[in-house]
């Protein structure tokens, strides 16, 4: 099963990118285009209402986080429990450098993104160095979430601490105002395209191989370590970019936005809904979660409890995610009807 060196290597090596490329670029990127069009037209549905626009942007942002998590976890099985911390770190760095350092957004946002990417790579590297399993990544990243929160508190003079601070960096850019919606649509579409690009590339093939059977992949010559680190870096960069852009759009930054119990929990629910490893799942999941979030707003802190229940239920009964499970079920029904 895993110890038969010969068959393991053979099973993985022969058809790499060619197999993915069997699906023509048209078919692969069509969903991305469709999503782009739908999202671009969405504003018509809320007719200029700032409220719905805000809601939609939040949905886009969570979808973006979810795609990043999809690449890290769905692609290489690394459970990064520090999305909020990564996004928050990038955001704070970008804000501080812009406001206190006087650097332009075009410099500070990439810097924040790079920092997040570096950390993502670091965490992956640590776990990979010793060929260790899921647990260590989970623990290290969770610890980092704690570190992030404490750093924000500790560097109060820089960060404004618990109360947060106003962000002026985005004024005058497309990140403010009605256009901001399209900025985030562009971001999300770019992420979707990136996801597909990775999936169809050498990277995606390597990811599938090492998720399928790590030992066989190693023996087939795949440098598992390198791919894990790449996934960690890319995903973390995406999270960092999203976080930084978001605060410059919002005009306000505080640790609560990037709290583990705020951001990470919602991203997990998004993926539990939408399915880990599906392209459009994050969007569907994010839409569901945004609606749910608004609907439950009067409950305040109790929402955390609801999400906890949702997570447990979903991972108990819909291991693949609600969307894929339902999709599979409808396929089965359709097949049965055909006969």
């Amino acid at each position, binding site marked *: 099963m895993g110890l038969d060196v010969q068959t393991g290597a053979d099973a993985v090596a022969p058809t790499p990118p060619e197999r993915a490329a069997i699906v023509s670029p048209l078919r692969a990127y069509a969903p991305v285009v469709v999503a782009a069009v739908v999202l671009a037209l969405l504003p018509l549905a809320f007719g200029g209402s700032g409220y719905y626009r805000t809601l939609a942007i939040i949905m886009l942002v969570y979808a973006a986080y979810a795609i990043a998590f999809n690449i890290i976890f769905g692609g290489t099985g690394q459970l990064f429990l520090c999305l909020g911390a990564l996004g928050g770190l990038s955001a704070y760095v970008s804000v501080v450098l812009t406001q206190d350092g006087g650097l332009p957004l075009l410099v500070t946002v990439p810097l924040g993104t790079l920092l997040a990417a570096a950390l993502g790579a670091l965490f992956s590297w640590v776990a990979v160095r010793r060929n260790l399993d899921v647990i260590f990544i989970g623990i290290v990243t969770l610890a980092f979430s704690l570190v992030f929160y404490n750093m924000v508190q500790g560097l109060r003079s820089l960060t404004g601490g618990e109360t947060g601070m106003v962000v002026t960096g985005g004024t005058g850019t497309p990140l403010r105002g009605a256009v901001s919606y399209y900025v985030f649509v562009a971001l999300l579409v770019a992420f979707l395209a990136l996801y597909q690009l990775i999936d169809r590339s050498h990277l995606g093939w390597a990811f599938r191989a090492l998720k399928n059977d790590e030992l066989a992949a190693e023996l087939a010559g795949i440098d598992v370590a390198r791919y894990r680190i790449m996934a960690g870096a890319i995903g973390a960069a995406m999270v960092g970019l999203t976080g930084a852009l978001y605060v410059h759009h919002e005009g306000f930054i505080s640790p609560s936005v990037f709290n583990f119990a705020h951001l990470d929990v919602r991203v997990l629910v998004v993926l539990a809904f939408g399915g880990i490893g599906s392209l459009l799942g994050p969007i569907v999941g994010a839409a569901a979660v945004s609606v749910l979030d608004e609907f439950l707003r009067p409950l305040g802190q109790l*929402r955390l409890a609801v999400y906890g229940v949702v997570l447990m239920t979903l991972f108990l009964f819909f291991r693949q995610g609600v969307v894929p499970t339902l999709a599979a079920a409808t396929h089965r029904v359709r097949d049965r009807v055909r006969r």
Partner: protein
Amino acid sequence: MAIVLDGIVFGLQLSLLAVGLTLIYGLGGVLNLAHGQFAAVAAIIGAVLVGRGHAPLVAVTLAVLAAGLLALFIDRTLMRPVYKLTGEARVLLSLLLTLGAAFLIDGLLIYYHPSTALNLSVPRLGLDLFGVRMRGSSIAASLVAIVVLVGLMLFLRYARFGKAIRSIIQDEVGAQLCGINPGRVRTVVFVLSGLLAGLVAATQAMISSVGSTDGLNFTILALIVTVVGGLGRVSGALVAGLLLGIVYTLASFHIGAFVTFVILLLAAIATILVRPSGILGKVS
């Protein structure tokens, strides 16, 4: 010197907190991310009972038992499907399900008791140790921790059930062949971990207040100690707890609270890189 002693006091709490977690891992290869929440629940229940006029000792005992009960409930419900899986799938599901449980408990606690906290006052006697004046609360907390930890070590080493626990960690199949039921043992240990977490809430409450928001912190601290001590090694958790307690207190005093956490994270990372089986090295 005073700081080192304070570090030991804190370290004992950390050891107590981590011991249950590391045992659960050793027995079943799973991690309970709701561990800290057991302590938080105990703290809140204790605080509520004390607030209603019950004697602190009674309140705390009931609170610790409640934590144990909660652990029993989670083991019987969430952990059943987890143990049916093996390897990485098992670990993942345990992390995700217990995370969900942690969110549920935190959400409920923070919503209904946002500012409730447990505070236990200990008689004001002081004691001189190595020339340092120790507060009654520190002494009490440490004594409880020492007694329980020593008791646990003795139990694991000499009691028949303790040996059964160790046997499962060393060779689960062998244990089954000896007529030991791993599932039942895991449940007992899970409940034990809940009781221990509840106990830490009580001992910490002697020193500072423990409230509804402390759950996640406790969990993460316990996780770091567990990793540094070596997953599944009780003796490792003990040593790591003391060590990290001292490091934490020293760093907190000299540098500042927030950098301390960075140091703890670095300690965990360093352990993984240099001594993945924990500071005590490989099990012979």
